[in-house]
């Protein structure tokens, strides 16, 4: 494709010039860019940064569009990630000058194909589209379930409770009945085991007298849930407890603890069949519901008092925002021990999805190195993802 002129010439020199690749600076810039993406929530690590460099060396670096496409292919691995990438790319590689933003997520250069005229048209189009949307003439049609799925837990009203519970139950049931790809020999399995059948027949001169069968294994995941019910989690914990309740009923091998300043086991309370009654009982049983948080001390209490709850096939799930008012050292030690004794440690943080959130509070910072999965848990979609993590452990 021809090099574009005109528009490119009007551009002020980019701060981090992609056009003038000196080896040392290019590496530094790519690493810096990767860090920015990471801060924005993309899973970009050292391996991805290395791939990004390899990709840049494989393409024509003088061609800005090509460099952009190459970086995006390597560093953004979903449509959402691509949107974040686009914004970050413009910010990092080119200082904003007003007319650089692509109109609708189009890659830079595409709108400039026929010069100034097209650009003006695109901008006009973009502005008008923005106005039309602001008018609110027409409402986009979403199904109620979808709205619920994306809606932040903290904004739920009581009426929506039943619908939420239904969706959560569906997720939990899927967790419970997951079939493994592995199979095992079984008298009445529904898969025919041809390999063993043939082998067996050899002993009878190749006569197949018996058809041997297999069935798919059902994998059972053992789960220990540690749920923060302190004041800073108040908006979320009631809904998360519901998820926990549903999960416990579906999986059957869940042990549940709640903590704020101290630790209480609520497995028994949540085993009641009626959710509301169960919630009431949990609230009664936990004296400091919505108090301050001592995560470290609570975890330590769990490790000491419930040693049998953990083994290498157990998934330990901590649901907390990490605002620890206790001693950071206690927390770090407890996390390290938990990591050693459990098969997998998942930390669900409802704040993780908030724009601009970074795990900077002290509790989160010391805990993070001992966590296998650090994921958001602010809406149903994020809980669905949790299901995947559970599936992978066994």
């Amino acid at each position, binding site marked *: *494709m021809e090099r574009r002129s005109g528009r490119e010439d009007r551009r002020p020199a980019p701060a981090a010039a992609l056009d003038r690749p000196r080896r040392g600076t290019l590496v530094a810039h790519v690493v810096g860019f990767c860090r920015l993406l990471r801060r924005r929530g993309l*899973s970009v690590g050292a*391996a*991805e940064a290395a*791939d990004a460099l*390899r*990709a840049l060396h*494989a*393409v*024509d670096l003088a*061609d800005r*569009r*090509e460099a952009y*496409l*190459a970086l*995006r*292919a*390597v560093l*953004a*691995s*979903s*449509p959402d*990630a*691509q949107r974040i990438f686009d914004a970050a790319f413009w910010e990092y590689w080119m200082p904003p000058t007003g007319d650089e933003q692509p109109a*609708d997520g189009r*890659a830079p250069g595409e709108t400039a194909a026929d010069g100034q005229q097209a650009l003006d*048209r*695109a901008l*006009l*189009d973009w502005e*008008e*589209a923005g106005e*039309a*949307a602001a008018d609110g003439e*027409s409402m*986009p*049609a979403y199904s109620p379930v979808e709205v619920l799925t994306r809606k932040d837990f903290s904004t739920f009203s009581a009426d929506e409770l039943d619908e939420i519970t239904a969706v959560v139950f569906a997720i939990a049931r899927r967790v419970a009945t997951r*079939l*493994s*790809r592995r199979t095992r020999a079984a008298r009445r399995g529904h898969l025919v085991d*041809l*390999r063993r059948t*043939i*082998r067996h*027949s*050899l*002993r009878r*001169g*190749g006569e197949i007298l018996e058809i041997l069968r297999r069935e798919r294994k059902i994998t059972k995941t053992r789960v220990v849930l540690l749920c923060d019910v302190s004041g800073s989690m108040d908006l979320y914990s009631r809904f998360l407890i519901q998820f926990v309740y549903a999960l416990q009923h579906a999986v059957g091998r869940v042990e549940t603890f709640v903590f704020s300043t101290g630790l209480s086991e609520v497995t028994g309370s949540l085993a009641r069949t009626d959710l509301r009654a169960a919630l009431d009982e949990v609230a009664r049983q936990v004296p400091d519901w919505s108090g301050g948080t001592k995560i470290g001390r609570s975890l330590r209490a769990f490790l000491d008092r419930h040693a049998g709850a953990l083994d290498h096939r157990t998934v330990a799930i901590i649901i907390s925002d990490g605002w620890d008012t206790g001693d950071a050292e206690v927390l770090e030690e407890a996390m390290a021990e938990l990591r050693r004794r459990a098969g997998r440690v998942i930390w669900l943080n409802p704040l993780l999805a908030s724009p601009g959130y970074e795990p900077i509070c002290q509790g989160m910072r010391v805990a993070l190195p001992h966590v296998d999965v650090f994921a958001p848990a602010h809406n149903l979609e994020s809980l*669905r*993802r949790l299901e*995947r993590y559970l*599936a*992978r452990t066994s």
Partner: protein
Amino acid sequence: MHPEIARIHELLARGGYIADRTIATSVYLSIALRKPLLIEGAAGVGKTEVAKVMARALETDLIRLQCYEGLDATTALYEWNYQKQLLHIRLMEGSDRPVAEREAEIFSEAFLLKRPLLDAITRAQAPVLLVDEIDRADEEFEAFLLEVLSDFQVSIPEIGTVAATTVPYVVLTSNRTRELGDALRRRCLYLWIDYPTFDKELEIVQRKVPGIDAHLAEQISAFMQLVRRVRLEKTPGVAETLDWSAALIALHREHLDRAAVEETLGVLFKHQDDAAAVRGQWLDGILDGIRTLEGAGRPWNGEAVARIADRLQPRR
């Protein structure tokens, strides 16, 4: 542009596939970096086609693994040829060789059926392996695939470990019916293919439906842009656009009006509900939009069509 990207661009165009630079660059990088290419996008935007072009660019074979729910290792990797084994047992009937020896014989490589994954790593020349619609297979299979793709060896209990003779070029496609795992995403280069823009679709219609009236082609392409804004069970893709164009020509329709659309609605929508929703709820608005475009003069451009589409239903 890098000369190799230009070549792939050219190949895409020659294959009747109206390429853009994004696709050409991704295909090139996947080859240059030897990383699998994960292609996502709605059904009918031509994801599978990209793998075919890649094979053509590399002048190598394409091996396709179609995924579906319940797909398991025996279908994807290898299976014993049971008929051949049974025949062989019959032939050996008279012999007095020990059972263990006979067993070893029928579980040897000669009786092995290579399925796509094993086939792809044991060729003399590295092929392109297309893992189509990976989202339809379950997550267990995804993990298994990841294992094969990172180790490039397969262990068969009766034979032992079979190491790859060549590392294939891998293309995976997904219609996003389910979220794929992060591990898989991180291993791959990523390419998102959207429905074509108005200009691109117009070019496709003109190229693939020779002899179509230029104005009808514009009307059809604009109609598609508008109808894709509507929330449907199955949004029509490029394949539907082409089928519909052919149907309209067969019925000697020279321009788009209510009668012409209603007559051919079945070609465009595969779900009865979709056809009913469009006929009852949206058709007037869409035809209205096309009339507005008519008033603005020709040729039509993508920006104008997008503006009309936003009026019908803002982009979600």
